[in-house]
């Protein structure tokens, strides 16, 4: 068997793949957080719950309406995005004039409420969601066995990240969004409906989280707790990357996912804290974050 650094190549590549998949979720989620924070100046604590809602939406759609994975991949983000838009419009928008911490506290309360509600109805244990038949099975790459679904997740989440980046950097809507990030009052004076832009942005962020949730459903179990487990790690990712740049959020997500995967190979005990350790080191060396503009 081929060995690399004293580790079987298969184990090494297997963990690398898991790292890449976790990284995909970190990237999608921290991207959404960064987009929301950029314009709304709110740290969306409910982001993890929105991810969980996406997974649940997919599962419930299948159970009650027999909507398959592919439609769920489109519908679940729309539903959760709509929910996000309602929350922003009627509740969150009242807090913009206050200290940013209130936005964090409000979304924290929202997260607790939703998580508690789902726990009440579905319990804490996870429920399975089948891999869609088109992506079932795996393929032998010669040096390792690749489950097709996992390969799909890496590809599609990368596509979603790049798509969002293009939307923000290259389109007209994106240019409004970036302008409103710099100076909302001036943009509004030019006749752009900034409150609507804020609502759309929050919906976009929530939708992205739900998209990640649907992708995650067949890999992890669909559980009410899946959101809060991941959100704290994503916060650390955001601290490392700094929320100044979209691309920075994406890159940091993948980097830290891979770092976590590799730690599982070399020093498994530390795998669930390695991201926090990296965060501490980055804080020491570059307090503003790797890609950060604002401290």
């Amino acid at each position, binding site marked *: 068997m081929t060995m690399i650094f004293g580790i079987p190549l298969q184990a090494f590549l297997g963990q690398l793949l898991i790292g890449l998949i976790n990284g995909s979720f970190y990237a999608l989620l921290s991207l959404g957080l960064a987009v929301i*924070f950029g314009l709304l100046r709110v*740290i969306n604590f409910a982001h993890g719950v929105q991810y969980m809602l996406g997974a649940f939406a997919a599962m419930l759609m299948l159970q009650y309406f027999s909507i398959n994975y592919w439609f769920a991949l489109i519908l679940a983000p729309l539903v959760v995005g709509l929910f996000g838009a309602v929350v922003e419009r009627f*509740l969150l928008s*009242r*807090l913009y*004039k*206050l*200290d*940013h*911490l*209130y936005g*964090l*506290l*409000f979304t*924290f*309360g*929202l*997260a*607790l*409420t*939703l*998580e*508690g*509600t789902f*726990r*009440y109805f579905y319990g804490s244990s996870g429920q399975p969601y089948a891999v869609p038949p088109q992506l079932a099975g795996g393929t032998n790459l010669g040096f390792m066995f690749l489950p097709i679904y996992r390969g799909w997740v890496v590809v599609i989440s990368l596509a979603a990240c790049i798509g969002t980046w293009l939307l923000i950097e290259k389109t007209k809507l994106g240019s409004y969004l970036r302008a409103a990030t710099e100076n909302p009052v001036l943009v509004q004076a030019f006749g752009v409906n900034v409150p609507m832009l804020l609502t759309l942005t929050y919906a976009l962020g929530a939708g992205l989280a739900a998209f990640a949730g649907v992708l995650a459903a067949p890999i992890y179990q669909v559980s009410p707790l899946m959101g*809060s487990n991941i959100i*704290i*790690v994503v*916060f*650390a990712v*955001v*601290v490392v990357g700094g929320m100044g740049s979209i691309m920075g959020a994406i890159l940091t997500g993948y980097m830290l996912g891979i770092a976590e995967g590799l730690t599982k190979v070399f020093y498994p*005990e530390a795998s*669930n*804290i390695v*991201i*926090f*350790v990296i*965060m*501490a080191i980055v*804080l*020491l060396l570059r*307090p503003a974050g790797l890609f950060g503009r604002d*401290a």
Partner: protein
Amino acid sequence: MTEVLHTTSKLPAERSATASRTYAAFLLVGLVLLIVAPLFFYPIFLMKLLCFALFACAFNLLLGYTGLLSFGHATFFGGAAYFTAHAVKEWGLSPELGVLLGVVGAAVLGLIMGFFAIRRQGIYFAMITLALSQMFFFFCLQAEFTQGEDGIQSVPRGYLFGLIDLSQSTNMYYFVLAVFLIGMVVIWRFINSPFGMILKSIRENEQRAVSLGYSVARYKLGAFVMSAALAGLAGGVKSLVFQFATLTDVAWQMSGEVILMTLLGGIGTLIGPIFGAGLVVTLQNYLATSQFPVTIVTGVVFMVCVLLFRRGLIGEFYASRLGRKLGFEHRR
């Protein structure tokens, strides 16, 4: 600059004579109530309430008087609970030394976490403290001395100073009450000291404090360590009251709970968090017997507080007509 957090703290010199008299009267009534309380209520419940009240006041020292939102205070509360429990059970230390060890341990943890967290401000500060406390949670999950999922069970309460038997719940209650009062006096002294004044100036306008030549980072770190140590005091005593220390105390939900207590009672009021803690603990006790999950209620209360009720109970009282008549004034 955005609007700072609602607070009601004032310089002592500004406080009117009426307010001082009202304060003294309330203080006296409160003390008497606390002394006779075990005649009417279940002592364990009261002790739990006092521990959480002290924890919330310690937390408020940071949020209300320095303007720093820590999302990682469970680390100090739960960490101290583990240290005290371990010291008393495994090393056979007396309860007062065990609690002291918990306080020192929490202060050291506070020094480490604060050292990293004060490098960033506002929202980042909250996220860093949350991430670091999650790291501590994983440490406690894996470390040997915490005994993992089981936690440290059946911790002996022992004899205070080798004399007073704390397994008697009345004795234990007055010990907890004494610790609580000492903690409150320390907090009161701290926020009214020159150090506390500088903290308030940092909360109001950090740039100006820097321009006046204060080393803001050191003051923030000082406040962080102080808050951590007092949270540790509460946690250490709590592990003696319940005679166990578990992962629940270090989990992020605990950090959320203490934020809620402070918000509900009134950020930046000396006594607000006590009432906030009282409400939350009572609510939890009440809901514990029903099927309804606590998190839903907690979450809804959180949202309502943030949207409609940012001054909290005591803050609203100070701002009300009655409160103003009694000489309190609410600063927006």
